[in-house]
């Protein structure tokens, strides 16, 4: 199995999918094509929807929940490049700003740390190996970002000193985040090929 080529859209002018023999200029005359706007919108909506499908995966810390939105930002980064990954990572958590403002900011930071490096690596190395390296490096940065953010934010919610939170890293935060990013990575790796075929159709 090899990762098929995907278009990397760094600037609007490289938006080539509409420039086929049947193009009438529809959809391609703005800075972003309507196709691109529509795909970004649906990926953002998907990240939002999946971010609400959260469930605990680590029995020792039931308040830490897994949600599959990370898969969306990874897939988006592979398909459309780092800028798209950044947009989805930020907009995808906007609804949470109104219920859990700091939590939403953390989610944005972690999603950025995960997807942007992965997309950058994959753009350089457009192969199966590149996808693996991208996912692993994104996951490592994501884990680091998640733990740092958790150390900062937990005292806002629970009356604990930062030192106490730091003591939780090894027994709780690290294993939970490793599990979380392992699931993100494995699922993304397995579904990216069929999905990229659909995207490029």
């Amino acid at each position, binding site marked *: 199995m090899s990762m098929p080529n995907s278009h990397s859209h760094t600037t609007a002018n490289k938006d080539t999918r509409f420039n086929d023999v049947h193009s009438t200029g529809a959809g391609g005359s703005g800075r972003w094509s309507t196709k691109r706007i529509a795909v970004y919108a649906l990926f953002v909506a998907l990240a939002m929807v999946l971010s609400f499908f959260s469930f605990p995966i680590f029995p020792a810390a039931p308040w830490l929940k897994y949600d*599959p939105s990370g898969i969306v930002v990874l897939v988006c980064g592979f398909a459309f490049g780092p800028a798209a990954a950044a947009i989805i990572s930020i907009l995808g958590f906007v609804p949470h700003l109104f219920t859990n403002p700091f939590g939403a900011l953390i989610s944005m930071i972690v999603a950025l740390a995960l997807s942007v490096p992965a997309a950058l690596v994959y753009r350089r190395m457009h192969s199966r190996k590149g996808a693996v390296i991208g996912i692993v490096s994104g996951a490592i940065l994501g884990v680091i970002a998640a733990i740092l953010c958790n150390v900062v934010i937990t005292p806002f919610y629970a009356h604990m000193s930062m030192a106490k939170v730091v003591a939780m890293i090894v027994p709780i935060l690290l294993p939970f985040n490793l599990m979380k990013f392992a699931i993100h990575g494995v699922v993304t790796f397995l*579904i990216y090929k069929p999905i990229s075929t659909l995207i490029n159709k």
Partner: protein
Amino acid sequence: MAASMTESAVPASADSKATVARLSQVSFSYDGGQTWALDHLSMEVHAGEHLCILGANGSGKSTLGSILSGATAPDQGQVELMGRAVCFDTPDQGRQIDTEAYRQARRSIGMVFQNPEDQIVTTVVQDDVAFGPENLSIPRQKMLSCVPAALKQVDLQTQMNDDPTRMSGGQQQRLALAGSLAMNPGMMVLDEPGAMLDAAGRQEIQSILCRLTTQGTAVVHITHLLEQARQADRVLVLDHGRIVASGRPDQILTRKDVPALIGKPDRNPLTQSRAPGADTKTTANNHAIAMVKLSNVSYSFPNAGSKALNEVNLELAAGQTLAIIGRNGSGKSTLARLICALAAPDSGSIQVAGLPLAGPNRPKAKHLRRHNLKLLRQRVGYVMQYPEHQLFADTVAQDIAYGPHNLGYGPEQVQHRVDDAMKLLGIGDLADRSPFDLSGGQRRLVAIAGVVACSPQLLVLDEVTASLDPQACARIMTLLRVLHKRGVTIVMSTHADREALDLADQTLLLEHGETLAYGTTAEVVERYHRLLATDAAEKGATGKKAERDQADQKPLSLLARLDPRAKLVTFLLAMFTAFAISTPTQLVLALMVTVGLFAAARAPLRSILNSVKGFLALMLLLALFNLLVTQTGRRLAAWGPFVLTTGGIWVAVLYACRFMLIIFLGALLVETTTPTQMTDACESLLSPLSRLGIHTNEIALVLSLALRFIPTLGREVQAIVEAQAARGGSIESGSLSQRLHAAIAITVPVFAGALRHADNLSRALDARCYEGSRQQRTHYRLLRLGRMDILFIALMAVYLLALLLHPLF
């Protein structure tokens, strides 16, 4: 014969009118010339005429619609749209496309697509209609009159402020029409606008189309339903990319020699006699054991006021077929989901395939219930509405094998079942193809095969023929007959009467979740027709009622009238600074301001409490945690290791209140601000960033579209999770590889669905002439900071300063 057919067959009177579209010798290929979707086709559309284009799936009618609307250019031939030559042959350079002429022409052409939901761009009816005029840079003053006028043309004028994502498919499609009409098109192209609607919705669209032509707009209506062609001025019949017949509907529809017309005989179900022997079979089975038995079953959706199902009873013997009929929203799908144990009823008892699913006989022990569910998955097959949305595997055969594999059959057994299912549906030749490369009808058949391959004793199908062409419908009906002969019990919800009559032993008619009639099919269907007839008669009355409702609407509250930018910024600041609260004075101040804001909003406390109740539980948990970990202050009590102190109580109260302030302020902001206002505010606040080269307008549109698609995707994710669960795929149990496989079987169709919506949406954006920054868009809604807004900002600033400066004093 057909390639040479030209406009000579058209009645002479049409020639006297102006031509809005002219195609000559047009050919179109999707595969670079190997096969031709359109083959040297010539036709014209005249101003103000109602033209119907008929044809089966794959006849090229959608391609023709796309060319007429200016979205696509052909490979060969000449196209003239709205008086402009847009695609033409030149002697030296071959075919030429004039994109600027196309762009101008598209501004006068409206396009409405099949899927009503995917054409909605925002969450307020009038804003959605204004989207097209905004793109055409129509001045705001003019929009204020053309938007309500367009809504009036489709009878939605009383619903200007409603949320279109919560409307019925028929209303959504009328909204799409209004969005097009507001752009004042000279020609409207509609590609199967009624395919996803029920009979009532289709009729509404049809009558609006007839009205339009009297106003001078040319209407091109593409459909595979003969009944919709009757009211047209002219009919074209397409087959294999050629026009095979053309003329007045009364001339064309009676012809017997047109192959494309013979697919579906247009007959009245009530006059058809039952197949011989059918009635005797019903009585013979009367004493057989019940495969499905429901007693007094009621169900309501979480957070919904009325019941989706109310006291429903039914009993179906093994081997029999039950049809569930009723309008959209009558509870048909809910009943199907309950029978498949995809939802549990609020009350009543359900027994399916010998397994008690609800009621007094349902086992109490968890492992027994899980065991029952496993048995149910083996015995009951579920074909959801639009089952092709569940396809995920690389090949058709792999996808069909998913269910049998989950049920634990060995490789040989699985292979045998897959082959049998493919043979039953006549899709053996597709085994190694990707399901995503197939046509819509083929995909439906593959998805059904994936359920049939599990060899269920009971097969539940939810509107299995919805928006399929007659050929694919016929194949599904044949399958159901074969399964019936094999002794499979069948429950199918439908609103197409013919299927119900041909196959069902008994029929249940649902209306607003209640059983309106239950018994022999002929009687129940007759009752249904009476229901629809009285409904049509009451149409006029409901219009008046809606106007009264409109008059009853309360004026907007103070908070709802504020500029959304003022609200967004101040509320977010108040939410973030809630974490800075650490003294009782600060807490009292913050609580007072919040109560004041709630008063200014006249907020419906109950709905806000309802929306935050999930968080309140979390808050209580946190409070308990804080109570026990904090051990400062005076000791009040102790139970073993747990010590209760004054410090603990204060911390618990403080942290809980901070949390509550944030949740309530957020909920209040969302409650008093529409998503459209929110996006307008974001766009305006982010606009300075556009100097840095960030595409803020586009990003704001992305956000707005995303918010609008949340409910759509949410429902779809839920449906896919359920459909795969019914095929035995679950992330929650099984080995690691099984769980991974289940995750893939859910995520791939979810992504595929998102991309499908994106594809439809981008075409809808094009049809509404969205061109991003190229055009100077006008705005239907004006954002203007008034005196009230300044005062509000000042008050909130005083509060924030007081809160932050308090520790210094």
